[in-house]
Each structure stands twice: as structure tokens, then as C-alpha cells.
């Protein structure tokens, strides 16, 4: 029996190596990664670098086309679109991340419980997820926001709820598969109780695949929030938010003030695009041969 000369890599080092590999092997993912960082940075420093107060109206400068003073132009109330796009970044990413994180956490919990315990718990959780799925999801989100009131918390909540079944089902299926695996049985003979087996031995193994799902869902969450804004159930004005800006801008589509919806729309699309690319990249990482 020979021992490989390679030094044993620590888990983190390995993960880092994988990420580095994924980023540099695939230029597209690298690009997406850079973009993602950019978005995060803007999300954090946006309010500080915005050239204008995003809420400040200016009666003398409404609907000014892009110019040196207003690179993205101004909206109907004379507010600087660039500043609004910049400041909106944090909120949009935050809402999406919040919704996905919530769905991820609760969904994974419910799903793994269902998968592990089985029986009536499984049945109940499955039925709950079925019920959510049986709703037209966007309409369910609409209903929740309309019923609870349109504020950030409720939009996050609604988006999380409609995301929930995906995580729960995914986790359940993954746990179901793994529950039968030898290493889980080995953990049991090693004296691990049911919960420890679940949370120490099974869940960490399904997390990577779930993360892929999550990064793909981030984009969907943003789109969802934008859709809500489009039908008037977004966050309250005057809070800058991409979806609202696009839908407000959309009313100028026929009068030619294209900048009102093109720039926020571009930010929105780019962000979603970036998340999708990253999701794809992560998927490659998790499963190098089965890229889809």
C-alpha cells in the first residue's frame, strides 16, 4: 500500500481550491463571480457613493435624459435614476437573499425532518408543500402581500413561502436517498441518535446541492419581487427598488423616456443573470459532468 505524496488538504483549503478552480476554469463563472462581488459592494456602499439623494425630487429636472449630471437620467419627479439604482441594489439583493435564506433554512429543516422521520410527519409536511404548490405561486405571493400589507418583511415572507416547497422537497428526497446509505447506517452503529445522524451526518452532505439551488433561486426571488412591484404590491414608495422603478418606467415606454426603465431594468436583469451564472457555475462544481 503506497501513500500518495500529496499533503492532506484541509477541508476548507479543498473547498477554496474547488471554488478557485470553478472560477478560473470557466471564464464565464469568473465573470459572474466578479459581477456578484460588484453587486455586493454596491449593495453595501451604494448609499454612500450615490451622487444624489435617491429620494430628492427636483421640479426643474424631471425626465431629464442621461447626461453628465445624471448619467442614467432622472425620473418623473426629477429624482436621479443612477442614485436610485445604486441605493436599490442593497434592498433588492437583501430581499432576495433574505427570502432565499428563509426558504432555504425552513425548507431544509422541514424536508429533512420529513425524510428522516417519515410516517405522519412526512405525510403532513408533504401535504403542506403540495398545498403550496397547488397555488399558482405568483398569485399566492400576491395574495400574501396583499393580505399582510406591502412592506419589505412581507414581500420577503411571501417570496420565501413560495420557494419553500422546492427546498423542502429537494431536502426530503436527498435525505431519503441518503438515509439508506451505508455511511448513515454506520453512523447509527457508531451510536448516533436519529437527530445527530440527521444533522451531523446527512444534512451537511446535502447542503452543497441545496446551495446550488439557492443561488439559482436568488434570481427568481428578485424577479418575483419585481413582479410584485409591477402589479403595485412592491415595497412602499419612495423606497428605491428596481422592480418599482421598471414598472414606473414602463409607463413611459410609449412616450420615449426609455432611460426610466432601461437602467433599472438592466440592473435587475444583470443581477438575475449573474445569479443564474453563478448557480450554473456552482452546479458544475457540485457535479462536473452533469452540467445542465
Amino acid at each position, binding site marked *: 500500500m503506497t501513500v500518495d505524496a500529496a499533503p492532506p488538504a484541509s477541508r476548507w483549503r479543498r473547498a477554496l481550491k474547488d471554488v478557485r478552480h470553478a472560477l478560473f476554469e470557466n471564464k464565464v463563472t469568473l465573470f459572474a463571480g466578479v459581477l456578484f462581488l460588484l453587486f455586493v459592494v454596491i449593495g453595501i456602499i451604494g448609499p454612500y457613493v450615490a451622487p444624489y439623494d435617491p429620494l430628492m425630487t427636483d421640479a426643474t429636472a424631471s425626465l431629464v435624459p442621461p447626461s453628465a449630471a445624471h448619467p442614467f437620467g432622472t425620473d418623473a419627479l426629477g429624482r436621479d435614476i443612477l442614485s436610485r439604482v445604486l441605493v436599490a441594489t442593497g434592498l433588492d439583493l437583501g430581499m432576495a437573499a433574505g427570502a432565499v435564506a428563509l426558504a432555504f433554512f425552513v425548507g431544509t429543516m422541514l424536508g429533512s425532518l420529513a425524510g428522516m422521520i417519515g410516517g405522519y410527519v412526512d405525510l403532513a409536511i408533504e401535504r403542506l408543500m403540495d398545498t403550496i404548490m397547488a*397555488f399558482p405561486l405568483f398569485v399566492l405571493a400576491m395574495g400574501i402581500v396583499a*393580505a399582510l400589507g406591502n412592506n419589505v418583511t412581507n414581500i420577503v415572507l411571501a417570496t420565501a413561502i413560495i420557494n419553500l416547497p422546492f427546498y423542502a422537497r429537494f431536502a426530503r428526497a436527498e435525505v431519503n436517498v441518503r438515509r439508506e446509505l451505508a455511511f448513515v447506517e454506520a453512523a447509527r452503529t457508531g451510536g448516533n441518535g436519529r437527530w445527530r445522524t440527521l444533522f451531523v451526518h446527512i444534512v451537511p452532505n446535502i447542503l452543497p446541492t441545496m446551495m446550488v439551488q439557492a443561488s439559482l433561486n436568488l434570481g427568481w426571488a428578485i424577479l418575483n419581487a419585481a413582479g410584485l412591484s409591477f402589479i403595485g404590491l412592491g415595497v412602499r414608495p419612495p423606497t428605491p427598488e428596481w422592480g418599482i422603478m421598471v414598472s414606473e418606467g414602463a409607463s413611459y415606454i410609449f412616450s420615449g423616456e426609455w432611460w426610466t426603465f432601461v437602467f433599472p431594468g438592466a440592473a435587475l436583469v444583470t443581477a438575475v*443573470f449573474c445569479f443564474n451564472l453563478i448557480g450554473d457555475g456552482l452546479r458544475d462544481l457540485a457535479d462536473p459532468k452533469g452540467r445542465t
Partner: protein
Amino acid sequence: MKTLLVIGRRIVSALPSIVGVVIVTFLLARALPGDPAAYYAGSSATPESIADIRSRLGLDKPLVFQFVDYVEKIAEGDLGTSLSSGQPVLNDLATRLPASMELTTAALIFALAIGLPLGLLAAVKQGSLADHLCRIIVTVGAAFPTFFVALVLVFIFYYKLDWAPQPLGRLDEIYFSAPDPVTGFYLVDTLIAGDLEAFRGALSQIVLPAISLGLFALAPIARITRASMLAALSSDFCRTARAMGLSKPRILIGYALRNAMLPIVNVLGMVFSFLLGANVLVEQVFAWPGIGAYAVNAVIASDYAAVQGFVLVMAILYVLLNLAVDLVATAIDPRVRYDG
């Protein structure tokens, strides 16, 4: 016989979620802001008249009793009357559902017509131009909000280029008369009626909304086609088929695709129900008289009978859709047939 059993079992297993939907919708509808009694009482209402209407509508009863009333009504096929259209919700839905179904189907056909071959090509020629194109379409297509696409399409193809007709719903009824409803699908009914002009009219109306909606469905379809084709192509049985010298098209279609169909059909089912939800935004832009636009208005107007009715119908549709998916899956895969 087996099929009947599958249908039966599926319907029975769907009942709990339908019940769940009914309960959740009922509660959600009550939670919507707005007071139907005040709405009915109108602009000249007095507290007394509102209270009177409230008791007439049964809204003063405890929630549980209201729920029982509601369920009884549903059992009689009465979904209540919409506040905003003034019509029985069932009528509204019945007239509007075909429009949504037609649009969704058209969108799905569009998405399939592009997504399926693209996914196939990407899987067969992994790493080729088609593969990259597929990846780009999958990520870009999924990045655009549908309403944004819809608006841009209208702007370009109607407003700027004048290639598309006015976004005025299903058929320009100023020039064409709506066909006699047989299937409720204008594209089909006009053909049945032999009215080619009207068919052309209906077709030209549906193109843009179907594309906006279909773009949304393109990504998941292309994605799953590619993935399941890759899996099928690298499977043992495809290797066998190659070893037996079967022709390329036969392996691709008869072996790989047929096996890949199962996940594709499953995704199609999901995409379809997703599209029915996404309709909501597209119908809004194209004045499509479907149930999506109806639902938006209902939610915003707190038109709770309409909301409840809509969701219930959608839930039933969802169940039927899953049933259809199951049946197709059964037709495709004998294993499903035996395992149930």
C-alpha cells in the same frame, strides 16, 4: 384498467391539497384588506347599511360558519359573485379560462419548439456552439422579468416596427367575429369554423404574448432536455444501442429521447403550472382576457370571491395537470405503470 387506477389514486391523493388550498385561500381572502360589505354598500353607505349588508352576506358570522357556508356553496358549484365584474365567478372563470389556456399552450409550444431541439443539440454536441447558445439562452432567458419582455416586445414590434397588431387581447373583434366556442381556443375554433382570416387574426394576436411568456419557459425546458439527454446518452442502454450498431437517429430519438422524456414531461407539467401563474403579468400587458389579469385585479381589488374562485380553479387545474403528467409518464415508462 391500470390507467383508471392511476387516475383514481392520483385524484384521491390530491384531495388533501385541494382541501388545503380551499382553507388557505379562504383565510387569505378574509385577510385581504377591504370590506366587501362596505364595497357593496357603496358611496352612500351608512354604518347601518353596511352592517345590514354584512349580515346579508353572512360576514358577521364566526369564521368557521362562514367557512362552512363557503364549502357548501362550492359543493353546489357556486363560487360567489365577483365584486368587480358583477358576474358569478364561475362564469367569469369559464369565459376567461380558455383564453389563458390558449395563451399558455401557445407559449409552451413556442418554448418547446425552441427549447427541445436546442437542448437536444446541446446534449448531442456538448461544448459546441449550440451548447453555448443553449447555456446563454437558459441563463439570459431566465433573467428577464416577463412583464419587461412583454413591454419591450410591444414597444418594438407594435409601436416601432408595426409588425404586430395592437395588444388588444385575443382577436380584433372589430374586424373579426369571435368563433363559436367549441374548444374555447380561438386558433382551433376559427379553423373549425373555416374562417381563415379570423385564424390569421387570432394568430397574429397571440404571437407576442406567447413569446413573452414562452421565453420564460424556454430556460427550464432547454435545461432539462439537455440534462436528461446527457444522462440518457451516457447511459448503459445507449452504449448497448451503439454497440448493436443502431443508427444515430434511432439511438437519439428512439432510445435516448424517449427515456429522457420522463423528466422532461415532469418539468413540462411544472412549467405549465408556472406559466399559468406567470400569465398574470403578461395578460396585464397584452389586455389578454384571461384569468391571470382577472386574478391580479381581484387581489388588488380585494375581490375575494374572485380570488377564491380563481385559486380553486387553478388548484384543480394543477391537479389535472399532474394527472396528465402522470398519465403521460405511465405511457412512456412501463415501470411507472407497474409500480403505480
